[in-house]
């Protein structure tokens, strides 16, 4: 019987416990990527590092934006900006399920009182040209995480296979803390001198972004940005591997991938503005996927991607 673990009292305490837990399991605790993304998977620490043969273990919080999910801060569960906790270990360790369950215990979920289930859910990201098999993890009927064994990313077979865990932090925390509306959730310790709720911090921004996402964002500008990002991504990758100035082999996979991320987010914004028809939608997704594939092709030509001169 594991020692009784105290219940966390705030959103940030849950994040801190996850950070500590995965640090203790040997993951590099990384920071969020400094760009707008739709999910933690887009962080290069996942997308690019799941490629190639080198071992990898990373954990991080990733702020994620889904413009279409904006509800002006009114819906108890839906946000256009939210946090994901992401773990990626390559090769996937044989006890990954147990490691994952340990993380739930670390944030105060008592395995003896709850019903944890692994329910089939295959993951696919059409924009990243990626797919994997795994489950959604249920706790008492609620989905608390995605658990995926990556099989392909950017059109490349994953060898070795990475194990990916994604926690929807707000939803998980609301369940653990017993909160019904996300905006009511204590963000820091409610006993502290200046207690702040999730709503104190994010209600206003949810409103502002919902309005901008749905009605104000200049679609001509977004469209132009999309094409520029696409063009820039391709032009970066068109440069020869050897840098004429330093004479070194420098494949610019990451700068190119930044442009791919940008294009992907711009597409999401355009989608939220309702200017992309059903038929066009597929074409846009295809364009982003083409970029992701090129970036993946470039990454495996880098040292981090397992390339070596010999």
């Amino acid at each position, binding site marked *: 019987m594991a020692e009784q673990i105290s219940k966390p009292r705030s959103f940030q305490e849950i994040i801190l416990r996850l950070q500590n837990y995965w640090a203790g399991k040997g993951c590099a605790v990384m920071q969020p990527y400094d760009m707008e993304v739709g999910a933690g998977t887009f962080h290069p620490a996942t997308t690019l590092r799941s490629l190639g043969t080198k071992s990898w273990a990373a954990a991080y919080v990733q702020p994620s934006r889904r413009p279409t999910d904006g509800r002006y801060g009114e819906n*108890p*569960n839906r946000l256009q900006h939210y946090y994901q906790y992401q773990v990626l270990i390559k*090769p*996937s*360790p*044989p006890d990954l*399920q147990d490691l994952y369950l340990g993380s739930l215990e670390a944030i105060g979920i008592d*395995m*003896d*009182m*709850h*019903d*944890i*289930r*692994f*329910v*089939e859910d*295959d993951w696919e990201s059409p924009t990243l040209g990626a797919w*994997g*098999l*795994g*489950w959604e993890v249920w*706790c*008492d*009927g*609620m989905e608390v995480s995605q658990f995926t*064994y990556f*099989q392909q990313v950017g059109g490349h077979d*994953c*060898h*070795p*296979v990475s*194990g990916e865990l994604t926690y929807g932090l707000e939803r998980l925390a609301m*369940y653990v803390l017993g909160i019904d509306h996300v905006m009511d959730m204590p963000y820091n310790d409610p006993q502290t001198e200046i207690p702040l709720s999730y709503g104190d911090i994010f209600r206003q921004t949810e409103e502002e972004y919902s309005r901008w996402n749905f009605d104000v964002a200049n679609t001509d500008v977004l469209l132009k940005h999309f094409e520029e990002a696409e063009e820039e991504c391709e032009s970066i990758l068109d440069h020869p591997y050897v840098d004429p100035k330093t004479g070194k082999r420098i494949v610019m996979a990451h700068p190119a991938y930044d442009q791919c991320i940008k294009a992907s987010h711009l597409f999401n914004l355009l989608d939220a503005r309702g200017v992309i*028809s*059903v*038929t066009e939608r597929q074409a846009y997704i295809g364009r982003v996927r083409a970029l992701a594939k090129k970036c993946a092709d470039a990454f495996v030509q880098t040292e981090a991607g397992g390339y070596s001169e010999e």
Partner: protein
Amino acid sequence: MPDLLIELFSEEIPARMQARAAEDLKKRVTDGLVEAGLTYAGAAAFSTPRRLTLALEGLLDKSPTVREERKGPRVDAPEKAIEGFLRGAGVSRDQLEERDDKKGKVFFAVIERPGRPASEIVAEVLENTIRNFPWPKSMRWGAGSLRWVRPLHSILCILTNDAGEAEVVPMDIDGIKSGNMTEGHRFMGAGRFPVSGFDDYVAKLKRDRVILDPAERADHIWQDATNQAFACGLEVVEDRGLLTEVAGLVEWPVVLMGEIGAEFLDLPPEVLQTSMKEHQKFFSVKNPKTGRIERFITVANRETADHGATILAGNQKVLSARLSDAKFFWENDLRVAKSGMHQWTDQLTNVTFHNKLGTQAARIDRIAALSREIAPVLGVEPDLAEQAAKVAKADLSSEMVYEFPELQGLMGRYYAEAAGLPAEVAAACEEHYSPLGPSDDVPAGDVSKVVALADKLDTLTGFWAIDEKPTGSKDPFALRRAALGVIRIVLAGDIRVHLDRFIDSQLLKHKINLNHLGASEGEIEALEETLDEIAEHGVFGAAFHAVIERLEGKDGAPDTGDGSLLRTVGDAVPDLSTDLLAFLHDRLKVHLRDEGVRHDVIDACLGMPGGDDLTLLVKRAHALGGFLKTDDGENLLQGFKRANNILTQAEEKDGVEYSFGADVKFAETDEEKALFAALDRAQADITPAMQSEDFEAAMSAMAALRAPIDAFFEAVQVNSDNDVVRRNRLNLLARIRQICLGVADLTRIEG
């Protein structure tokens, strides 16, 4: 005789794959063992979320020794031939025997394959099974390259002898070594334990909170669920598929019943049921007195100190969040419905049905117009049919159907009722999709039937117009189902309708839409004029030519020459129409064959006039089928064939067609005269019978020809030396042919 126990222990196997996987494991292993000579007395396979298990009883402990003799070349054959034989048989020179044969001394190789121990064979067969397992989807994990549905963790493989002693069958598959160990429930088990045989295995699993047999788990769930519901005066809504799935999600089922918040009880029961089933895998529990769904059953995978209270509370909370969504959709939708659904139909102008066939809104307009045209056939008021068609698909824009596509149609009915539309219209919203499959009923209401026919005919003609017909196993737009739907609605309602006309005009409408952009001035108008002509006169060819004639010679009229748009469309429509009718006939043949009607009987009726009137066609086929089962029918068929054969041969030889002019005055024998009289009588009976579509009467009149025809052939030689007499007889035979072929094409009947 040892028993074999195999368990493949992995991370969670998708519930929908478990039953099939257990069967595949059994089949592949037993097939492999039997092929290697290891027979067994009994086999059983089981699955849980984390394991596939196979138990074999009474396995041979070794495969039998097999002796095989192979005849080789003659002793004096060239050295090369002998060497080839040695290689092929896998023996050395000194193992060959010389034997006397008819051709002299010949080499024989006697190959003896000694039996092999069971353990060796099992290891080979199991490894082969694991490496080639037919999972619908499989994956790799870690740094390995082995594929399984999810990571495979351990292999238990033991042979247990009669004394109950177990021996591990050793193997190593990509680092996974077989053993005699397994484990029980993920959370309630006590770690890994050894197993000595199947009974021990089942007992220890149960001790560690795993019920191995999925059927036992399902029984347990169903018993407990119905008991708990019964105790509250309620009943569980039966759902076999859900029960199987849920039994595949748990190793130790614990049934918990919870309440649905009062604020949700007014949602339509189908919405509650669908939401709970799809999202949460809950069973619905209804009050038999009111029919309302009031509670839910969830199945947990463990026992807890608080008897499931925490688990149930969590599930209830998730359900409330889900149903809040559903309630939100329902209330928003009702508002739109009560304001007349225009918002939804307007939205369908932005939804593409198919990139060549246009938007859903355009499709609905076509279906509505066609519904107006079909309505009189069923005695339905055209305005009512049009109104029904206009709203029948409005619910596709509703929030509820966006969330739960499987509720399309049903929600349409609720919303149409809420909008205060006529009951027939509301019914059509739900029923016009039917029949969806062979087991689905055809629509009950006449308005529903009209809209259903219009919907299906528009779909069929549309995809025919753009040449997207089903090929082989590919039928992405479910056109076979649409065709069968048309057939079943027409036949079930005894509906008398000539489909040709509707098919022609609908094909033409699609062609007009498809050519709208590229057409020159006047062309579309001319085609639309043709549509009006069809509506009035009903025949495409005549309508089209009338329009063309009017255009020709007129100043500024569009081009009507070869290769012009008008000609191309004018040529395409009849071809497509014929092809689509043939497709309907093919589906009809399959449908009637399933009802026991012979395919040649159908063939004999397909080519008869009015083949686009399916009800008439089937009536004829049934009458003919019944007729051919009688003695008279069978004999008449033989008589007809004999007459037809003689006639065909004579026509080929003489190069003429005998069809007219038989005269009784050239008749020589009584039998010949009798046949003349019989034909006159039959003709007099058959003509009015055919006119009133009384096929039974026509065929029984035809049956009366049997005796005179038989007597005629008995007594008369057709090919007389007298040419006048011969010709007269051939013309007489032609009358038989003509009368019979007027009823059905008997040349298509086999035998």
